[in-house]
């Protein structure tokens, strides 16, 4: 149940940060198919994730978070730890 909540929050956040329609964000969303995903908005995404999920994302993971699935995985791990 928690994971479903993360999914919804993550989709909302990604839509906000990348200025996309909520419906456009799905499990296949990635740095390759989202127009506004660049190094600057990537940092904005990190800020939003850290704030909204109340986690501190390790440096190594920041660089790896290049698609929806990986981000969800990392966030879930951080939350369930």
């Amino acid at each position, binding site marked *: 149940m928690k994971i479903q909540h993360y999914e919804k929050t993550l989709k*909302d*956040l990604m839509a*906000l*940060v990348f*200025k996309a329609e909520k419906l456009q964000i799905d499990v296949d969303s990635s740095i390759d198919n989202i127009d506004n995903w*660049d*190094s*600057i908005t990537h*940092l*904005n995404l990190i*800020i*939003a994730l850290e*704030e*909204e999920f109340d986690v501190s994302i390790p*440096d190594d993971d*920041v660089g790896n978070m290049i698609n929806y699935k990986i981000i969800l995985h990392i966030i879930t791990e951080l939350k369930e730890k």
Partner: protein
Amino acid sequence: MVDSFVYNLRNYSYTEILEVNTMLSNINYHNEFNIQILSNTTVNPLNEILEAFVRSFRMNPSVEFGNYDNIVQDSFSLEKANLVIIFYDLMNIIEHAHINLELLKEIEVREMIAKIKKEIQVIFNNLADQPLVLFNMFYPYKYNELHHFQSNLSFIARELNAFLAEQKTTNVELIDIEKIIATIGSKNAIEYKKFLKYKMLYSFQFFKSYVASIDNMLLRCMGKVKKVIVFDCDNTLWKGIVGEDGIKGIEMSSDSAKGIYFHLVQKMAVEWSKKGILICLCSKNNWDDVMQVIDTHEAMILTSEYIISMKVNWTNKAENLRHLASELNLGLDSFVFIDDSDYEVNLVKTQLPEVLTIQVPKEIETYPIMLHEVVTRFFNLKPISEDLDKLNQYKQQKVRQDALTDFGNIDDYLMSLGTTIKIYHNETEHIKRIAQLTQKTNQFNLTTRRYTEHEIEAYIKSDNTDLFSLEVKDNYGNSGITGVAIISITKTQAMYIDTFLLSCRVISRNVENAFLYFILDFYKSKGITSIQAEYIESKKNILVKDLYGNIGFDLDSEKQFSKRYSIQLENYNPRKEKTVQIIK
């Protein structure tokens, strides 16, 4: 909603600010408001906060960022904006400044200070025609520690801050970011980890506090400052209800436990009235009762001479406020309304959302502080003496003259940097760094081709490819390997520039010209007759769209996202870039 977003900005989360901004971005307003931000660290999270701020005052924002670490260079060609914000951080004046600055000898510290002073003069001079420039004062940040010893960093900050205060022209406001950091705590304000990785020194919380702390200046240059404060009377200007408690039953004197807060509010209101704020009253009362208090109560400080208009009647307060607006010929959006009653506050909030409506707090001891905050943030207090600031005019002129004698134009400035470059040919030591540059560089990258270390190694070994790497130094430090050119031979025996890129740390210093001239000379001396080049447009590399044309290449063909160029070397006379020296 409009004012309360700004009023409560500090309490909004990043996501909430994004939501406000997204919601308001669907509306198109009549007026534009342009903010230019120059910085030597990454400050992009300011974008969304400033956009939401501007939109909440019914204007269309355009927030633009200069090139990373190019404050001086960008200041030469900055278009006129409504507001310019400059983040010049000591932390990034050299690599790992907090360590490396402490290793400098005294003379080197003085040179560093002299260099930055000159830059400040150039910046102020170049931005003299901008309506408002916010320049952050220097702050000697050091690992969150409380250091009382004399560090070079704090010495530099002190010297430069004194210089800023002395040199600042009338269109410059100095922002004391140390104060902003103090209010949220340096542990919350500074993210050293993100600085090391992404050159982002400040946290989102800091950026929010920063915008909240400059909101008065933003409102002033947006022309959205408030001009009128409308006070209710009972339990707003005095404790008690005059119609019920009688003139003897109400309290507002400094020696009354309940009255003191109202005393302070009245005292401030008098000061504000003297400083140009229009004070009005709007109270549901009998006219005579209120007039008797104002004219005869011994503790009443806010007397008739400070009040521009009074609506004391039994009419709906929204109606009264509309009357006041037309009487004073001002928009309701320049009004602040203060009342203690839930009913009146909600009525005005719903009927006149453009008025900033403030309720007298239930914890009455916070009332004067809260009101003081509202006024300092939303009003423009004029100095009591209206003398023209001759001193400032004089200062402004002096800065311009000083700067002009030092650097008449950007070339003089660039010369003063003493930039030198060293170019390496097929250097295997650089493979890792070159691959990294091809993968990371977006702005100054003509073709944006990404290569792995393995591919770079193959290029270096191949006879058909030349690989040049560029090292850049100046009087103030070494930027390391910050440029790459990959040139391969075509089927027609011409040379083709497959990749040409510079790291953003060294752009706008004419290094690219020197690098390209070197390459042209290199092939001319080898008897090559023609060099071909290409610009492939990406989302990020608009900066270099005319590079080859400016250097003297001929445009051969143009497609939607690419331009092909060539240059004939037999007609090409070797050129030199005078602001950059090449070291063999």
